[in-house]
C-alpha cells in the first residue's frame, strides 16, 4: 500500500514539469478566455468590467462582420475539406500506380507544404490579380477562350471566395497526399492478389478493399481538415490583405484577431466570446465525426 503511494508520488513528480507548463500556457488561458467571454465590457488596462452575463455573445452574434466571417468560414470548410480530400486520394492513387518518376512527382506534390504561405499568396496574386498593367494569368486565359475578365482579388464575392478556396485546397493538399500515399502503400498487396484471383473489378477492389483499409487515415485527414479549415486566417490575409472586413473575406479567427488588435480592436470580451463560439462549433463537428467513424471504420 505504502509503496503504491510512494510510486504514485514519484510518477506525479516526473509529470510535474510538463503539468506546470501545460497548466500555465494552455489550461489557464483557456479558462481565462472562458471567463472573459462572460465579463461585460472588460477593460484589459484597468482590469475591470461592468458585470457578468451573456451580452458579449449577443453582441458578437448580432455583429454583421461576425456573421460575414462565420458564413465565409462555413463555405470554406464545406468546400475545401471534401474537395481537398478527394483530390488528394485521386492523386495518391495515381502516384501509387506509376513506378517511373514516382519520387519526382511525390516531391512536386509535397513542395507547397514547405513553401511559405505568404509567398504562395504572392504567386496567387500574380495569377489572379488585376492591375493597371495586366489582368493576370488566369484572366489572360479566360479572355483567350473568349470569356470576360474578372477581378478575382477586388471584384465580386464569388470570385474572391473561389480564389480563397483554390488557394486553401492547394495549401492543404500536400500533407494529405503524403499521408494517403503512404497508407495506400501499406495495404498488403496479397489482398489485391486474392481479389485478382477472384476476378474482382478495379472499381470493386477500390470501394470494397482499398477504401475500407485506408479509412482510418481518411477519417484522420477529414477531422484535422475540418479543424484546420475552421482556423483559417493567414490564407485570407495572404490574398486580400489585413483589412478583411472591408474585403468581405474575413474568417472567424480573423474576426477574433481584429477584435483584439485590429483598427477597431481592444475588445477582449468580444474576441473571447467569438473564440468560444468557434470552439463549440469545432467541438461539435469533431464529436459528430468521431461518432460516424466509430460506426463505419475498420479497426485493427
Amino acid at each position: 500500500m505504502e509503496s503504491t503511494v510512494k510510486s504514485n508520488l514519484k510518477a506525479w513528480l516526473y509529470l510535474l514539469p510538463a503539468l506546470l507548463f501545460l497548466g500555465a500556457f494552455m489550461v489557464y488561458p483557456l479558462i481565462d478566455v472562458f471567463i472573459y467571454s462572460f465579463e461585460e465590457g472588460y477593460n484589459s488596462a484597468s482590469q475591470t468590467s461592468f458585470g457578468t452575463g451573456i451580452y458579449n455573445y449577443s453582441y458578437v452574434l448580432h455583429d454583421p462582420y461576425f456573421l460575414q466571417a462565420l458564413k465565409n468560414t462555413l463555405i470554406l470548410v464545406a468546400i475545401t475539406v471534401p474537395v481537398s480530400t478527394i483530390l488528394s486520394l485521386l492523386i495518391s492513387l495515381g502516384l501509387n500506380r506509376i513506378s517511373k518518376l514516382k519520387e519526382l512527382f511525390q516531391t512536386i506534390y509535397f513542395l507547397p507544404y514547405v513553401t511559405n504561405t505568404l509567398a504562395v499568396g504572392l504567386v496567387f496574386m500574380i495569377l489572379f490579380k488585376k492591375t493597371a498593367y495586366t489582368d493576370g494569368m488566369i484572366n489572360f486565359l479566360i479572355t483567350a477562350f473568349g470569356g470576360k475578365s474578372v477581378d478575382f482579388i477586388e471584384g465580386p464575392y464569388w470570385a474572391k471566395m473561389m480564389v480563397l478556396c483554390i488557394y486553401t485546397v492547394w495549401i492543404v493538399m500536400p500533407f494529405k497526399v503524403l499521408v494517403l500515399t503512404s497508407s495506400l502503400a501499406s495495404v498488403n498487396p496479397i489482398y489485391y492478389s486474392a481479389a485478382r484471383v477472384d476476378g474482382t473489378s478495379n472499381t470493386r477492389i477500390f470501394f470494397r478493399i482499398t477504401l475500407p483499409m485506408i479509412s482510418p487515415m481518411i477519417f484522420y485527414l477529414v477531422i484535422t481538415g475540418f479543424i484546420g479549415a475552421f482556423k483559417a486566417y493567414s490564407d485570407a490575409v495572404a490574398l486580400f490583405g489585413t483589412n478583411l472586413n472591408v474585403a468581405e473575406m474575413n474568417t472567424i479567427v480573423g474576426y477574433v484577431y481584429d477584435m483584439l488588435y485590429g483598427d477597431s480592436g481592444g475588445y477582449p470580451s468580444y474576441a473571447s466570446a467569438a473564440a468560444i463560439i468557434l470552439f463549440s462549433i469545432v467541438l461539435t463537428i469533431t464529436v459528430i465525426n468521431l461518432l460516424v467513424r466509430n460506426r463505419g471504420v475498420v479497426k485493427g
Partner: protein
Amino acid sequence: MKVVLKNLTKRFPSRDKNHPEDVIAVNNFDFTIEDGKLVGLLGPSGCGKSTTLNLISGLEKPTAGQIFFGEDDVTKLPPENRGIGLVFQNYALYPHLTVRQNILFPLQNLKGKDKMSKPDMEKAALEAAKLVQIDSLMARKPSELSGGQQQRVAIARALVKMPRVLLLDEPLSNLDARLRLQTREEIRRIQKETGITTIFVTHDQEEAMSICDELVVMKDGVIHQIGAPQSVYDDPKNLFVAMFLGTPQINVFDGVVKAGKLYIGEEAVLDVEGVRDGSVSVGIRPEGFKHDENGAFTLKLERIEVMGRDISVIAHHDKCRQADIRAIISSESNIDLGKGTVSFNLNPRKVFVFDDRTDERLF
C-alpha cells in the same frame, strides 16, 4: 481436372550486378497431375515451388512452356478466367469483412451468365462453410478467429466458386504443431469430399508425405523426383531426395565399392552386386540398422535415447558426413552401454549407394 505442365520455365531478371544472368526459378517442368489427386510440391526454400504455384494460378506469367487444365490451354488466361481457388500462406482474408462476406466475395464478382441470385449465393457460401465446419462463425471478423479457423475460412472462400483446381501455398506453416496435424487431416478430408484436383506447396516433408497422393520433390528450379510418397522415400533417385525425405534424416557415409562389396572404413558392410568399383556416397536410413553383437558394421556409441516403442542410438563413425549417426531400433534390443561400441547388420532395402560426384543413385 487434369493439370499438365509442358516445358514450363520461369526466369527472373537478376538484381545482383555481379551476376547479371537471369535467375531460373522454374526450369523446364514437364509433368501431369491426374484428375482428383492431391499433389504436394516439396522442396527447400528458394527451390521455385511457390513460383510454380503462381504460374499455375496465373499470378505469374511463364517465360516459356504451356499449362493445360484438361484439354484447355490456360497459359495466356488471367487468373480469374482459369477457374482456380487459391489459398494464400497468410490466408489474405479481408479484415474488414465478416466470414460470411469473405466467402461471398468471389461470388459477388461473377458477371453475365454466371451471375447468381442473392439466395443462391448465400446457399453456396453456407455449403462451403459447412464443408470446412465454420458455419457457426459466419458473423465474425477474421481477427476474432484462431489461426486454424482463419485457414478454414480461406479454404471455404477458395472453394465457394467450385474451382477446377485448388491451390494451397504453404497451408500449414502459420499453424502450431497440434493444429497442423489436425488441419492436414482436414485438408485431406475436404479434398476427398470435393474431388477437386489440389496442388499444395510445402517445405515440410512430413506434411507432404502424410497427405499427398503424389510428391514432386524440387531443388533449385529442377524437379528431382515425382512419385507416391512411400515410393519416393523407399526408392530415392539421388542423394538430395534421400536426404530431404525422412525424419530423423538419413545417415550419409563415404564408402568404397570393391568387387561387389561395399566398404565403409575397413568393414565390408553389404553386398552390392553390379555396382562399379570406386568411391561412393552411402545413405543408410535410421531404421535400416539391425542390432547384432556380431554385426558387420561397428560404430562408436555415444548414447541412447529411449522413446518407448523404439530406441534411438546415437553414434559416431569417422566416415560419416554428419556429426551424429542416428539408428532407430526396437526397444527390445539389449545394448551394452559399457562397451563403447555397437555393431549392426544393415537392411539392404534401407541402404542406398550414390555416385560420389553426380549424387545419382547406383544401388
